[in-house]
């Protein structure tokens, strides 16, 4: 935390954050100016996409978005303060080719790891927010991601702050093997302690949330929200189809399906997410979080 940037006044920090959010949103000169929707195939100008928060203006498809951009959509202006920004991934198994792949992903996304964690305010309520970024190794849970999430949960517990986590993940980080699997236990244990102290945890599931992340902290929210049409499940649809030998019905494992089966409180469109979070946080303000 003894970073030279901490000496800068808040406005400087905010400007850096906004620049990163802009870069995440692809609003820089070298990105193509027309974006095609992965669901309906319609092309629209990037400015139009940006205006609709990267929800397809035609079909309403919620495009996955980068971590800093995601935070910029929900945090109060000027409140962002990143936690553990320097925490770097480690090659715990000496896995062939993993180091190079990591640097390539880092160069491509400008991120250090798949998780960004921050302290900030949402609608005036101080909180801890964490995001998994699906552009970095499919948001998979490495030891560094597990460590960052755990530290964020522990920080929220120590400061008695509510916790909001936006999940988007393909599951465990294969290249880190059993150490990746154990992060499921580590993060869930941290949530247990946080919860036992009376902390409020809002879990927001975004497209796609699967595997070890679904089977750990992402499913453990006091309040469970999901973006429309997000794929949410433990096993991936391809694996299920291979196992049972039949095609899955349309909408299987989507947010609306999860709500229908009792695993999500509300499906919230991106444009209303901030307002919904403010409502939930304010309803829990002054709780018994010791």
């Amino acid at each position, binding site marked *: 935390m003894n970073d030279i940037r901490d000496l800068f006044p808040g406005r400087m920090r905010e400007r850096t954050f906004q620049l990163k959010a802009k870069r995440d949103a692809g609003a820089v000169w070298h990105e193509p100016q027309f974006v095609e929707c992965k669901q309906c195939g319609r092309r629209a100008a990037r400015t139009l996409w940006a205006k609709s928060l990267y929800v397809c203006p035609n079909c309403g498809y919620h495009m996955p978005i980068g971590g800093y951009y995601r935070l910029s959509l929900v945090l109060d202006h000027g409140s962002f303060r990143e936690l553990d920004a320097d925490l770097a991934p480690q090659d715990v*198994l000496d896995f062939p080719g993993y180091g190079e792949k990591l640097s390539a992903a880092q160069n491509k996304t400008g991120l250090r790891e798949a998780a960004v964690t921050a302290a900030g305010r949402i609608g005036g309520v101080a909180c801890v927010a964490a995001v998994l970024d699906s552009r970095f190794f499919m948001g998979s849970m490495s030891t560094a991601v597990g460590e960052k999430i755990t530290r964020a949960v522990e920080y929220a517990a120590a400061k008695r702050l509510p916790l909001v986590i936006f999940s988007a993940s393909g599951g465990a980080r294969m290249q880190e093997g059993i150490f*990746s699997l*154990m992060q*499921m236990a580590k993060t*869930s*244990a941290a949530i247990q302690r946080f919860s036992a102290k009376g902390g409020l945890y809002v879990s927001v599931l975004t497209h796609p949330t699967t595997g070890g992340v679904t089977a750990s902290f992402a499913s453990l929210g006091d309040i469970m929200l999901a973006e429309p049409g997000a794929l*949410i499940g*433990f096993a991936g649809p391809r694996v299920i189809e291979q196992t*049972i030998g039949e095609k899955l019905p349309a909408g299987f494992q989507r947010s609306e399906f999860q709500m229908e089966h009792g695993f999500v409180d509300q499906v919230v469109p991106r444009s209303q997410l901030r307002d919904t979070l403010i409502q939930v946080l304010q309803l829990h303000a002054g709780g018994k979080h010791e």
Partner: protein
Amino acid sequence: MIKEILEQLAPLDAQIAALKGNGNDMDALTAHASELAELAVEEDEILRTCGPLTAEDRVFLARHPERPHIDEIISALFTDFFEQRGDRQCKEDPAILGGVARFHGMPVTVIGHRKGSTLDENLACNFGMPGPEGYRKALRLMKQAEKFGRPILTFIDTPGAYPGKDAEERGQGEAIARNLMEMSGLTVPVLAVVTGEGSSGGALALGVANHILMLENAVYSVLSPEGFASILWKDASRSGEACEMMKLTAQDLYRGGIVEEVIPEPVGGAQRSHAALFERLDAALRMHLKELCRMSEKQLADQRYKKYRQIGETRNA
């Protein structure tokens, strides 16, 4: 490797069995004593040629159908077993076996994956792949163990959680997540033993323990080697290669600080002598349980939290 060696041994095993006759009657044993001794020496020689086992060998042994299963472990090491069934919500899942039993006189809760020994049993138990009901039953039994102050012993042997349609509809991910969270806070001793293959979250959901033990040829990994190869290289047939890279053997996990003890198996694998294995397993369980039973409720929860907290703990770069 080990596969070929076991194939060479098969006819000798058959001869020994024939000489010993049906029961273990002493007459047959004494009458054929010299032949039996010769065969035993011959087997030893074959086993000696196999050298150190590779990770792929150990995966093969971990999945061996004659490896001791949960039913045999319970009848060999525990007395007075009382099976408890059902998750009290909708279903009984036979892929997980659980209940109360005595271990050297002390009441404990025993839970383990059940694969079954015959094909019919395999099918009934879904090859040891539990659905959410199985995990919820396990959690119910663990919470009950906590209520009555009983230590919990879990035995892990599963290819993973069942990736089926109904399992997803009933919240496979949520069930596993809930187990991880609740197990981490339990105030009674939790001791986990990986007896065969421990794959993915389906294994971990019974594995958040104070101490983890592994049999010498058991494996524990983030995913099956086949799944691993098909995700990374889109080619499940490269699973042998994956075995070596994944560092999934008991010895690897012991080195990685995840496992507290590796329990030696008879030469050639646990399937060659269940009795010898059970003796060592019993001793190890007693020792670890004795150590854990000395700890207070808070110490147990704290020790367990710290154990997982430090896995993959990174320093700032």
